[in-house]
């Protein structure tokens, strides 16, 4: 155990920080043209992605031809730390960069990599992930959107829901059923679908906070025809890609949640003295202890994250990430609630809401409601607990 990763890593950190200072988009650039969804790429983001790609700072763990520099896991972690600390969005299309592109490198053919994966890395195209359906949420393998082979085409019918960024994405990495007779995990394929194709209807879903800038969508597929060449990997082998994410960075997805949590807790501590003064004396003690709990959680999350990361570097397993996912998102929710209640009679007031990049995310109460996006999406807290119990702790399935 050591508090520091050593002088070589410190040198790497300094190198990145100084590059970042010189090349990052300015806060003003971002504020003028914020991304409107998680697959929208404003002009500044296109330039920024390209600049990172050219300098080998887009995905440091990858080789230079894919926007990296063959960095090791510790360096990648340091890179993410500094990127988050500087509050620079690494991408405005996280699903594209984090899941779709790496899955295509693993499973796609040359043309798919050229036409779909590389444009993501160059900031030219954005992708959404077509997974959840009205009848397939936590139980994703029950999905029923059908793709039927018709000559050299696939004909797609069905509906997706909660599709982040579908309202701005250039294409969809779509999970659909190609063999309805096979066991449910074995009849699923992935197909690349350009969102401009005929028969696709995208209906944005206004969310409970900031309904004016929706990111989630319903996507309807009505006899959508796609060349069969757009099948990713083998037919009926789509389930293998369902858990797919940037393998190099899988052990580090917690970092941005932890840093977000720390940022929020320091904001909470900053606001606390004035807010506490507005509360009645007998109210304060109760609230103070809850603030302390949130502070402990934020510090524990950081330590837990680094500990899990250290295990991963030593060849440990990834399921422990389930622990981080549940812990960070629930801590964020609790923190927002404590902070909202701390504001007393001001809690109902709406806050500033400007963009999706972490600035002006609204009042604490709005953020509290917004935090359920974390505890529900990408495997709800309940699913994470099942994963912990079964895969980490080895408890038997029912």
């Amino acid at each position, binding site marked *: *155990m*050591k*508090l*520091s*990763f050593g002088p070589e890593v410190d040198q790497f950190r300094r190198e990145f920080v100084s590059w970042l200072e010189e090349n990052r988009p300015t806060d003003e650039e971002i504020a003028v043209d914020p991304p409107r969804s998680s697959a929208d790429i404003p002009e500044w983001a296109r330039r920024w992605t390209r600049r990172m790609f050219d300098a080998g700072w887009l995905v440091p763990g990858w080789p230079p031809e894919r926007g990296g520099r063959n960095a090791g896991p510790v360096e990648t972690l340091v890179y993410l730390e500094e990127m988050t600390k500087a509050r620079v969005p690494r991408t405005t299309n996280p699903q594209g960069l984090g899941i779709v592109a790496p899955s295509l490198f693993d499973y796609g053919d040359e043309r798919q990599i050229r036409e779909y994966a590389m444009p993501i890395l160059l900031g030219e195209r954005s992708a959404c992930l077509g997974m959840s359906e009205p009848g397939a949420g936590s139980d994703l393998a029950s999905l029923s959107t059908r793709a039927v082979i018709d000559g050299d085409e696939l004909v797609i019918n069905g509906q997706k829901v909660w599709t982040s960024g579908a309202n701005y994405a250039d294409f969809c990495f779509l999970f659909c059923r190609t063999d309805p007779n096979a066991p449910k995990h074995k009849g699923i394929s992935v197909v690349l679908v350009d969102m401009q194709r005929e028969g696709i209807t995208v209906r944005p879903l206004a969310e409970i906070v900031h309904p004016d800038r929706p990111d989630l969508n319903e996507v309807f597929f009505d006899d959508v025809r796609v060349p069969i060449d757009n099948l990713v990997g083998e037919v009926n082998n789509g389930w293998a890609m369902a858990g797919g994410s940037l393998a190099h960075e899988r052990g580090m997805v917690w970092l941005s949640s932890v840093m977000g949590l720390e940022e929020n807790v320091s904001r909470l*501590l900053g606001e*606390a*003295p004035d807010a*506490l*003064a*507005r509360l009645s*004396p007998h109210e*304060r003690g109760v609230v*103070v*202890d809850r*603030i*302390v*709990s949130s*502070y*402990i*959680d934020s*510090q*524990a999350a950081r*330590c*837990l994250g*680094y*500990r899990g990361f*250290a*295990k991963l570097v*030593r060849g440990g397993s990834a399921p422990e990430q389930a*622990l981080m996912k*549940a*812990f960070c998102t629930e801590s964020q929710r609790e923190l927002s609630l404590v902070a909202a209640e701390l504001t007393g009679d001001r809690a109902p007031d709406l806050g500033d809401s400007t963009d999706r990049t972490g600035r002006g995310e609204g009042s604490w109460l709005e953020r509290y409601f917004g935090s359920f996006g974390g505890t529900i999406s990408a495997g709800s807290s*309940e699913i*994470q*607990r*099942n994963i*912990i*119990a*079964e895969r*980490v*702790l*080895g*408890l*038997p*399935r*029912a």
Partner: protein
Amino acid sequence: MDLEFSTEEAELRDNVRSVLAASCPPSLVRSIFEGSGDAESLWKQMVDLYWPGLAIPEPLGGLGMGYVEVAIVVEELGRVVAPGPFLPTVTQFAPAVRSLGEDRHHEHFLSAVASGELTGSLALAEEGAWEPAAVRTVARHTGDAWRLSGSKSSVLSGAPAFDELVVVARAEGTHGLDGLGAFVIPWASVETTSRRVIDPTLPLVDVRLDDVEVPEERVLAAPGAEHVPAALAVVLEEATAAVALSTVGTCRSIFESTLDYAKVREQYGRPIGSFQALKHRFADLYLSLERATSLCYFAALTIAEDDPRRSEAVSLAKAAVGDCQRLMAQDGLQLHGGIGFTWENDLHFLLKRAKCGDPLFGSAAWHRGRLAEQHGLLEVSA
């Protein structure tokens, strides 16, 4: 930061764990609880393995390692509810002598700790208060000796007999952190009352000092010496983190025992651990355990590397361990069902040990209050 054991650290842990599996089985713990055994042969073995001298410098006969190694041993001792003088001697007495005393004290006392000739403890708390500022025991200088009078509570002893005691006292008429000093006195020279406690592996005594004479060579730090408050803070950090680490080890044992039981105990034709109501509780228990463990390791590291965050890290660890033991003892007993409620089952040794660490060196509530204070949440002017 790298918050996982290095190869050498993992080897030490494995080594300690296998020694304790053989030398501190549940039957030994049971014999302590039932009053028929003692920790002497276990302590002798620890001495043979040089554990008391782990963090004592090599010139004084120790192994010259650091707090991380001490932390590893302490956590393992907690896992098996080990009785004996290790905790007070290595994590209280030795740091007190090291931080408060001078070279001559180090040579005299620390080499004796390293060689296993000497056991000791720390008498700080008074009437339940662990902060040095609350000390009321008085030291008077008469002739060429000091004389101590007062009462100390909850001194961790390591029965049957202890050799030395570091006593914190203050010059008459001083307050707060002013005028504090520290003395080493022979255990035999004080009047002790052994408390009847629910966990005899953490034996506690209350101490009365009735004009106890201390010769000059046993004055670690004269009352009012400038370094005392900072040195005491260091001692408290090491002692507090050790109690937290020991408790987290105990909690891990409760967790493992309960988890194992849920995998084999069948009702309605299936293991009870296959029911989702229990699965989710186990996930929460595991989370609480890992939350506390991570903060304990972080605290140990900040102490080992003398990082400025050490004071806060220790409070975070003690507070998180408090949350953990509360949940773990409660669900551990509940999920074992009736069998865990019996004297015959070994679970209660763990449950009691997990509980009894909390009040030592500041309860979880005390440390939460301290965190609140340090973050300016208590000085609110309306």
